[in-house]
């Protein structure tokens, strides 16, 4: 066990401080070579750290680490279980692809916004790792603020009024979300005197203050996660950001808020909610699935289609609360993982499209040459995965969710899950339709620029990974189930 603790300490340090040091070094040292390669090297190294950590966790079970050797409640704890492990893997894989893509993108004469990306993105990456490791309410608040500010900064890397307006709208929502979350933390602390997740269930008996805290924390996090009724900032912000930034915003940043909702509901606040409230959360998620998909069907710009698809796909995550079972747990985690990879692939491929043709309108997608074919293949495979068709990770996730819905006798969620898949198939087919040879011939058939090899292969590799996910569900399931809370509501 002592050895396991040491592994956790080293791996956690690497996960949080590795990307952070990348940001600091790139900011201070003016060599372009560093900007292009350092992040990529570190993301490869972190995969190794995560691999070691995973096998350690498999033998030792969920783990906790008291920072500074100061035990909770005075000190801050980090904690790791299957859910956070999956989120860390998602972050690591997306980071690897984005760093590879950006290595090409940043090559040569980088402009101001590209230089900004090279510094701000590693900070965001570090904060996301910190957030997925966090097990302390106030620590979560601070990491969330880093994530939010970095995300806003990434949006305004794009020049122009549209991005500025989108960023301001984002900031207002995020600010309101932070304050609500902070109020919840204050209420919890006043009622329990504890901030650590592991100690909260015992210290926080049901009370009006605790219920209010649950309500405001959930509302605040929903704003950060762009769950359906408070999603208004997402499409503009994610569409406005530069493509690699859109990829991390859509694949990772909004996941952070949803992840925290699940973590808190199934952990510290487990005793505070009833099945009726869980059904309500599920209904909110279902509404998001339908609304986001319908909006995605109506958008004219490829990045906006993908952004609205995020609103829809996030709606699956709250379904875990009413379904509350180990199958639903696996399905939700798998869905988050799969969506993260697929969405990053889509935004990076959209970035290639804009880079090569300078045209992001939906009907402009076409296969001009071999490069274009690879790019469109990435979009198609990621689309298959989002729709949950058989060989993909999305299929496995939906399978588990459906299993949970029938096992708990809640067939209505099954309808939502299937309908969501069909709608996703519809908007992806609409996106791909012109490329399959049915679109109007484009006036300007020559490509503007050619994309680097890494730029082309990064989204394709991510998309292929979602297929790999589809074939190793049974192998990954025990990892996801590490330390899974099995709430008594199921």
């Amino acid at each position, binding site marked *: 066990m002592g050895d396991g603790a040491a592994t956790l300490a080293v791996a956690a340090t690497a996960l949080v401080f590795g990307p952070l040091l990348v940001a600091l070094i790139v900011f201070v040292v003016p060599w372009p070579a560093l900007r292009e390669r350092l992040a990529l090297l570190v993301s490869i190294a972190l995969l190794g750290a995560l691999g070691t950590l995973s096998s350690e966790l498999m033998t030792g079970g969920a783990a906790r680490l008291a920072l500074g050797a100061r035990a909770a409640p005075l000190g801050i704890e980090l904690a790791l279980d299957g859910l956070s492990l999956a989120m860390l893997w998602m972050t690591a894989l997306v980071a690897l692809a984005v760093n590879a893509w950006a290595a090409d993108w940043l090559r040569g004469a980088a402009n101001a916004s590209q230089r900004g990306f090279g510094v701000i993105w590693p900070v965001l990456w570090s904060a996301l790792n910190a957030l997925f490791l966090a097990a302390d309410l106030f620590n979560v608040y601070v990491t969330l603020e880093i994530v939010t500010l970095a995300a806003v*900064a990434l949006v305004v890397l794009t020049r122009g009024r*549209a991005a500025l307006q989108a960023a301001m709208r984002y900031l207002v929502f995020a*600010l*309101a979300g932070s*304050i609500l979350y*902070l109020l919840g933390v*204050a209420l919890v*602390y006043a009622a329990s005197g504890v901030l650590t997740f592991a100690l909260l269930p015992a210290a926080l008996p049901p009370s009006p203050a605790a219920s209010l805290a649950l309500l405001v924390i959930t509302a605040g996090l929903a704003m950060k996660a762009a769950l359906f009724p408070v999603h208004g900032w997402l499409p503009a912000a994610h569409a406005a950001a530069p493509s690699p930034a859109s990829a991390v915003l859509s694949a990772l940043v909004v996941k952070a808020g949803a992840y925290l909702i699940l973590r808190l509901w199934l952990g510290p606040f487990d005793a505070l909610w009833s099945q009726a409230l869980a059904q309500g959360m599920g209904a909110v998620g279902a509404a998001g699935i339908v609304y986001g998909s319908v909006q995605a069907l109506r958008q004219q710009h490829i990045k906006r289609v993908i952004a609205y698809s995020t609103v829809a796909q996030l709606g699956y995550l709250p379904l875990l609360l009413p379904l509350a079972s180990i199958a639903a747990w696996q399905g939700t985690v798998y869905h988050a993982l799969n969506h993260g990879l697929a969405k990053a692939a889509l935004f990076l491929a959209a970035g290639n499209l804009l880079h090569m043709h300078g045209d992001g309108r939906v009907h402009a997608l076409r296969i001009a040459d071999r490069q274009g074919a690879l790019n469109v293949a990435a979009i198609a495979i990621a689309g298959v995965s989002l729709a949950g068709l058989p060989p993909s990770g999305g299929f496995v996730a939906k399978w588990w969710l459906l299993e949970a819905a029938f096992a708990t006798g809640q067939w209505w969620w099954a309808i939502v899950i299937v309908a969501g898949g069909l709608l996703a198939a519809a908007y992806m087919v609409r996106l791909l339709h012109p490329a399959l040879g049915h679109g109007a011939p484009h006036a300007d058939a020559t490509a503007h620029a050619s994309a680097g090899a890494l730029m082309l292969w990064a989204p394709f590799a991510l998309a292929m990974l979602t297929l790999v996910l589809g074939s190793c569900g049974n192998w990954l399931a025990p990892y996801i189930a590490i330390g899974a809370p099995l709430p008594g509501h199921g």
Partner: protein
Amino acid sequence: MSLWAYCATAAGLFAIGLYGLLAYSDFIQRLLAANIMVSAVFLYLIVTAASTATPPHPVPQAMVLTGIVVAVSVTALALVLVLVRCLRALPDDAAPRPQDTAGSADG
């Protein structure tokens, strides 16, 4: 110490801030409202801590100190956004490329 007076103040400040955030569309006004809400939460934290011990427990104090710095950071970034929006009318703002309606920078 008058516990109820401070609790009422904290709740009142929060309500005023919430009203400001929801009622007005001016960005700086909303920012001020948000700052007041944050102050309200801090006040509540310290009042609760001070009701059991004097001086208040150091953990909530450290939380509030951290929170003050976080608040000033967010405010500062938001204000630079306002400044850029108000002061800057460069050509690429006035005439965005037609296909760039989503505001993408990848070209």
